[in-house]
C-alpha cells in the first residue's frame, strides 16, 4: 500500500511545536512561485509572527558585492499595530498567499518610515573592525547584544534607528559565504530574548541563507540562458531577415529595368509588399519577445481573459473551416498567473493548433479543475502531431516545425508557466494531433 503526502502544505496540528511550524513556513519559500523579495518577507514573517512568541520586529540586510545593504524591515510601528498584525497572522488556516498579500501591504506602509531609513544603511561586508550590525556578518557568528547603548561596537546610526537596547544579529550563510544578515528584536513587548529563541533564529537563518543563495544562483542561470538565447537569436534573425531582403532587392532590380510588362510589374510589387510585411512581422515578434517582462503572478478569474481571446476577431477568422469546441467549466476558480501573459499564452496555443492542423480539423479547448489546487487549460488539435525528437526541443527558443514560425511561442509559454509555478504537459504522436495542457495553481473565488 502506498500513501502520498503533499510536500508544500504540511498540515500540522495547531498545538504542534512552534519550531516545527516556523521551519515549515520557511521551507515553503523554496517551492513558492513568488519573487525572492516576497519569499524573504515570509521568512521575516515567520520570525515575527505567532502572537508574541516570535520576535516583534525583523530587519533584513543583503550582501551586494562586498557591501551589506539594508533591504527591508518587517514589524509593527506601535503596540496597537502589533496587536492587529499578530491577530491576522494567527488566524487558523491562513495560507502562504494571504501572508504574502498582507506583508506587501505592510511593507508598503513602512516604506516611508522604517524600511526607507533602513535602506540608507550600507556596511562593508568583510572588513576588520566592522561595527554592529555588520560585525556579526564579518565574524560569521550570531551576536546577542544587550545594553546596546553602552556597547562601543554598535554603530550609533543603527542604534538611533532601531531604538532598542537588546537585539539579535543572525548572519545568513550559504556554503560558508555571507549572503546577508537578519536583526531581530522585541521592541514592542520588551520580552527578554531567551537562549531557545536564539537557537531557533539561528536555524531559520541557515535555511534563509541557503534559500537566498540558491535563488541567486537560479537567477544567474536564467540570465546565462537568456544570453545564450540572444546569441542564437542573432543568428536566426540574420536568416529570417536575409531571405525577404533578397526577394525585395531582386524583384526591385527587375522593376528598374526598362519596359517591364504591366503584369510583371504588378506581380513584383505584390511580392515586395508581402515580403516587407513579413519583415515587419519578424521585427514585431522579435521586439515583443525581447521586451516581454513577466509581472508578479496574482490570483485572478481567467474567465474574462479567455472570453476575450476566444471571441477575438483574429481567432474567429482563423477558426473558419475548423470545428472549434470550447468546453469551459462553469464557475472557474481563480488561477495564479499574470493575466496579460495568460491571454498571450492562450493566443499562442490556439495559433499553434490552427497552424498545424489542416482545414476541416477539430480543435478542442478545455478549462477544468484538475484537483483542489490545480486548474488545467488544454488545447487539443487533430493536426500533424509532433515526433519524439521534436518533442525534446519544443521549448527551445527559435525551434519551429512550422514553415513560417519564429519558434518563440512555446518558449514564451514555458517562461510564463515557470514564473507562476505551473506545469506543461504535451501529448502527441506523429499524425495523431497534439494536446498541450497547462496546469496552474488555483484557489476558490473570493
Amino acid at each position, binding site marked *: 500500500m502506498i500513501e502520498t503526502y503533499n510536500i508544500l502544505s504540511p498540515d500540522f496540528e495547531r498545538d504542534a511545536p512552534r519550531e516545527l511550524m516556523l521551519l515549515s513556513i520557511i521551507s515553503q519559500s523554496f517551492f513558492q512561485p513568488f519573487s525572492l523579495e516576497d519569499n524573504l518577507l515570509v521568512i521575516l514573517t515567520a520570525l515575527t509572527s505567532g502572537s508574541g512568541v516570535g520576535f516583534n520586529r525583523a530587519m533584513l540586510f543583503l550582501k551586494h558585492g562586498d557591501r551589506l545593504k539594508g533591504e527591508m524591515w518587517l514589524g509593527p510601528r506601535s503596540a496597537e499595530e502589533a496587536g492587529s498584525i499578530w491577530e491576522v497572522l494567527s488566524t487558523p488556516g491562513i495560507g502562504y498567499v494571504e501572508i504574502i498579500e498582507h506583508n506587501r501591504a505592510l511593507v508598503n506602509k513602512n516604506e516611508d518610515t522604517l524600511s526607507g531609513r533602513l535602506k540608507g544603511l550600507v556596511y562593508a561586508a568583510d572588513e576588520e573592525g566592522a561595527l554592529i550590525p555588520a560585525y556579526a556578518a564579518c565574524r560569521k557568528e550570531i551576536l546577542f547584544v544587550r545594553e546596546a547603548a553602552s556597547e562601543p561596537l554598535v554603530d550609533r546610526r543603527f542604534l538611533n534607528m532601531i531604538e532598542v537596547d537588546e537585539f539579535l544579529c543572525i548572519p545568513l550563510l550559504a556554503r560558508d559565504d555571507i549572503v546577508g544578515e537578519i536583526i531581530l528584536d522585541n521592541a514592542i513587548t520588551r520580552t527578554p530574548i531567551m537562549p531557545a529563541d536564539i537557537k531557533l533564529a539561528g536555524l531559520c537563518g541557515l535555511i534563509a541563507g541557503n534559500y537566498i543563495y540558491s535563488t541567486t544562483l537560479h537567477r544567474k542561470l536564467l540570465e546565462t540562458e537568456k544570453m545564450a538565447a540572444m546569441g542564437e537569436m542573432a543568428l536566426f534573425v*540574420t536568416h529570417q531577415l536575409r531571405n525577404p531582403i*533578397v*526577394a525585395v532587392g531582386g524583384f526591385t532590380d527587375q522593376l528598374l529595368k526598362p519596359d517591364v510588362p504591366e503584369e510583371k510589374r504588378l506581380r513584383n510589387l505584390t511580392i515586395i509588399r508581402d515580403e516587407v510585411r513579413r519583415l515587419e512581422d519578424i521585427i514585431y515578434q522579435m521586439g515583443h519577445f525581447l521586451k516581454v517582462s513577466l509581472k508578479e503572478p496574482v490570483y485572478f478569474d481567467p474567465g474574462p481573459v479567455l472570453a476575450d481571446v476566444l471571441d477575438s476577431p483574429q481567432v474567429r477568422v482563423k477558426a473558419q473551416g475548423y470545428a472549434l469546441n470550447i468546453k469551459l467549466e462553469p464557475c472557474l476558480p481563480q488561477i495564479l498567473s499574470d493575466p496579460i501573459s495568460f491571454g498571450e499564452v492562450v493566443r499562442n496555443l490556439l495559433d499553434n493548433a490552427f497552424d498545424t492542423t489542416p482545414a476541416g480539423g477539430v480543435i478542442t479547448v478545455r478549462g477544468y479543475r484538475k484537483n483542489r489546487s490545480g486548474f488545467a487549460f488544454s488545447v487539443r488539435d487533430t493536426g500533424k502531431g509532433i515526433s519524439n525528437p521534436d518533442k525534446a526541443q519544443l521549448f527551445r527558443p527559435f525551434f519551429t516545425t512550422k*514553415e513560417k514560425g519564429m519558434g518563440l511561442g512555446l518558449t514564451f509559454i514555458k517562461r510564463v508557466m515557470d514564473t507562476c509555478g505551473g506545469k506543461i504537459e504535451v501529448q502527441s504522436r506523429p499524425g495523431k494531433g497534439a494536446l498541450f495542457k497547462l496546469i496552474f495553481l488555483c484557489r476558490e473565488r473570493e
Partner: protein
Amino acid sequence: MKKNILLVEDEKALCLLYEEELGREGYAVTAVNDAEAALAELGKTTFDLIITDIRMPGKDGIELITQIMGLRKDIPIIINSAYQSYKEDFMTWAADAYVVKSASLDELKSKVKQLLGD
C-alpha cells in the same frame, strides 16, 4: 543547348526570382523546395550545376551535398545560404563555391558563369 541548373531553395519567392534571373542569363533552371525532391530530380535529369540553400525543412543542404557527392562527384555545387557561419563547417568545403544570400544577385551570377565556363 541551354545548360541545366538545379536550384534547391525552400523560399518560393526566391525560387521564382532565381529562375527568372538565371533564365535571363540563358540557363534552364529547375527549382525544388527540399532535398528529397532534389535527389529525385537528379535521378531524372542531367544537371550542369547545383545551387542549394542549407537551412531547409527536412534534410538540410549539408546532408544533401554529402549524398550528391556519393552519387555524382562531377556536378559543381554552389551553396547559397543566409548564414555566413556555415563556411566554418568543413562539410561545406566540399562545395565549389559559397555565396551568402544578398539583395544583389551579381556575385551568384558571376560564380555560376565561372563554374560553367561561360
